[in-house]
């Protein structure tokens, strides 16, 4: 192509270039979660994009078919690994629905599930905002928010024994009660987290550099959100006021007073602002849940579902058999199929499970919210600059473990 031809192109006032393919990822600092984007760029401008996923595929659904219903919890930890508790809860609710024991799960267990779930939602959003801020050079914000996330994870470690892969929830409840001084500690942590979020808010929301990278970039309309099946903060930032906790309340969410923040423009800044506000709303829920937390057992009273106490197992044949059957054969879930969905960190986290009446699932399909959320990038990115990929991808908050499964 000679210069003469280039002069006739619509972009002739810019540098005359040919379009070229550009790989971002799978090994790229901003492509967290291991995803590959093949961009077709003309100069700095993106002409088209091909988002390629699957680098973190671990056969979750196939593995689940060879594990007992209980053994699947550790796998769910590794779906969205910045909010494992929400996956635990979502999966447990699906199996309980198929077992028909939703109403028998003790109230305290339901409150605990809300508490650990909302803590996880905060850590999910903190991670998203912290990482995105860092990628836009706001490293201080990253440190502030990551520190806040660590305080919360320390609390979850206290109840579950693991910092990240909690496996804390069980079918029929949770494995252990909260620690004695959990609530006072959580109130103290929330105070500090609130301060950290306020600091980050001050440093980012009115920051010219940050706003320039976020405002008006990566716009998603409400119609697009519905068309692409976008849920969670991405859908809500586009004006789609859909939150499973409000629209299809589960656990005890109908007892709490909280708002669902909604964006107006659907750009990167709206997604940031929605997440910021959602963390504050989660803290509201946490405070109400701690106030209302009832006393009582934390696991369903049913020897066919809940493991008996070790003391009973070692000293009575009845509990020994129950323990043996639950471990070796698994919980026997009646034949049937069910779709159960909850509000995960990134949106509607669905489990479609099929039982053939044995101790293992016949099928355990996950509807990962960020799979749908990520798909929209093919439409959003063309026309933007290469540098816009980073905040836009960051605000979609694709989590490889969940998207690829």
């Amino acid at each position, binding site marked *: 192509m000679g210069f003469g031809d280039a002069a006739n192109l619509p972009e002739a006032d810019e540098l005359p270039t040919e379009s070229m393919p550009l790989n971002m990822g799978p090994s790229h600092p901003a492509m967290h979660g291991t995803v590959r984007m093949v961009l077709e760029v003309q100069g700095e401008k993106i002409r088209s994009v091909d988002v390629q996923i699957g680098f973190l595929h671990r056969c979750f659904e196939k593995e689940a078919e060879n594990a007992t219903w209980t053994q699947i919890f550790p796998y769910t930890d590794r779906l969205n690994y910045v909010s494992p508790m929400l996956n635990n809860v979502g999966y447990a609710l699906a199996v309980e629905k198929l077992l028909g024991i939703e109403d028998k799960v003790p109230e305290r267990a339901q409150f605990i599930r809300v508490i650990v779930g909302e803590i996880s939602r905060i850590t999910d959003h903190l991670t998203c905002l912290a990482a995105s801020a860092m990628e836009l050079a706001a490293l201080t914000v990253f440190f502030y928010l990551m520190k806040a996330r660590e305080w919360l994870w320390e609390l979850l470690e206290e109840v579950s024994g693991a910092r990240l892969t909690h496996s804390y929830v069980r079918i029929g409840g949770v494995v252990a009660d909260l620690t004695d001084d959990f609530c006072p500690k959580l109130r103290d942590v929330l105070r500090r987290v609130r301060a950290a979020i306020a600091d980050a808010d001050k440093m980012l929301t009115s920051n010219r550099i940050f706003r320039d990278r976020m405002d008006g970039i990566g716009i998603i309309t409400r119609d697009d959100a519905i068309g692409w099946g976008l849920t969670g903060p991405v859908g809500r930032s586009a004006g789609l006021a859909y939150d499973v906790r409000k629209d299809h309340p589960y656990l005890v969410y109908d007892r709490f007073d909280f708002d669902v923040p909604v964006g107006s423009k659907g750009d990167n800044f709206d997604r940031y602002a929605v997440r910021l506000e959602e963390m504050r709303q989660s803290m509201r829920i946490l405070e109400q849940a701690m106030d209302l937390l009832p006393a009582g057992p934390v696991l369903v009273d049913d020897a066919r579902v809940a493991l008996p106490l070790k003391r*009973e197992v070692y*000293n*009575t*044949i009845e*509990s020994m*058999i*129950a323990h043996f059957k639950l471990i*070796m054969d698994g919980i026997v879930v009646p034949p049937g199929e069910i779709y159960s969905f909850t509000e995960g960190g990134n949106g509607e986290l669905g489990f479609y499970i099929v039982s053939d009446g*044995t101790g293992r699932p016949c099928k355990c399909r996950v509807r990962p919210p960020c799979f749908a959320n990520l798909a929209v990038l093919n439409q959003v990115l063309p026309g933007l600059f290469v540098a816009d990929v980073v905040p836009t991808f960051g605000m979609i908050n694709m989590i490889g473990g969940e998207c690829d499964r």
Partner: protein
Amino acid sequence: MAGENQASSGTPAKVKIVIDGRAHEFPAGLTILEACQRVGVQVPFFCWHPGLSAPAVCRQCLVEIKGFPKPVPSCYTPVADKMEVITNSPKVLDVRRQMLEFTLLNHPIDCPICDKAGECMLQKHYFDWDARLARNDGSKLRKAKVVDVGRHVVLDQERCILCSRCIRVCNEVARQQDLVMAFRGDRQLLTTAPGQRLDNPYSLNTVDVCPVGALTAKDFRFSMRAWELWATPSVCPGCATGCNIEIHAARDVIRRLIPRLNPAVNKYWMCDEGRLIYQRVHHNRLVSPMVAGSPASWDAALAEAARLLAQARDKSPATLGVVLSAQMTNEDLFAFSRLAGEDLRTSRVYLVGAGEGWRDDILVSADKNPNTTGAKLIGGLTLRTAADLKQDLETGVLTALLLVGEADVVGSLGLLQSLVVLTSHQGAPVAAAQVALPLAMWAEVDGSFTNRQGKVQRLHAAIPPAGQARPGWGIAARLGQALGAGWTYANAKQVFSEARDKVTLMSGADWGKAEMPVQLRFANSRG
């Protein structure tokens, strides 16, 4: 009663009964339990067994019948016209639970060390029908834990739930009164009859029917957790009866054989001798092709074998013999018969096998070969006998021999100029052979045996062949190729289909569907 109800057409009389609100029709004479099983209504039981009489001692199968003052054992009560049976009323469920509570009262907390755990009926019924915490915190009544009751069986009297199934197996299947109950109440226990031991030839069936881990097999005891085993349907190679079995193996090692129901052959049972026959699969095997006493590659060994056989054939086919064994599968027999006739062009085909042994009129045959019938059908009337072989070896009629399969070879192999042996085990023929090729055994191949009744029964490969051993039909095809044959086979099913087409008396046989091994843990029907 049945005689009176017999309709004039000769068909058995039908009775109409209601089970749990649903009307059904059954032939008269059926018990309520059998009727429930036919329509898929779950009624638990310990002492009842489809192959044995019903003493109604466990009281686990109690059901309510409208108009009867108290629950009745369904395993013992025949269906009668207009009967209304309730199997799931609160009263029935409560009675069931109470009986389980009694059974568990003195049951030791042995699941972690019990061989039956995972396939235990007590575990299953407790979980399905009770699933309540213990109400008793007193100490349990102790009984003897290791009683050496017989050659193959150990008794744990604490675990016994006194269902009497084992006693009935001895009485009704083996027809020997070896086991009895002693004492009464919670001190009641199972023991051997005075002066007797559980040494009848069917003693290991007591271990199968034991609903708990009271009777365990010395051979299997503590060797493997039951749920880790993989079950493959097969046929016992111990004698001409051809009892249907399941091979239970884990990590390529067979751990036990158990009988598989076939009403026309062995019902629910098999003999102790057959059960232990698997041990030979893992003992003293020939694992590599041998040429002149040293291990060689398959290619080299086959080339040398073909050279020796071709040399003998080209000199004089009349001095070349092929020895087949009645231990071989139909597929191996057919392939080697074809090799002998078409490619070695010899009519000197001998059929040998294991010698005669003891027999009874229950299951055990005197013919200790699983496939004598099949060999005779495939080999036809020209097959020569072991006696012929002995004579031909001693008179020097034979100068070269292809010896296939396991057999007690009589006569001297020393006079032969060339000897090619295909066998599964080390031994004198391997030592004497110029070329020895390792043969896969019955548990390692897909194939079929034809039993003494003429039934063609399928074997399924449960474990891979030992070392470099290969199925016989495959070796026959490769030898044929090396001898310039125009035929080959890709799998055992192909050989079977051809045999069925060519052997008139096999024409009705069916290869059946492929059965993959199933891990017992996932075979939900068990225990």
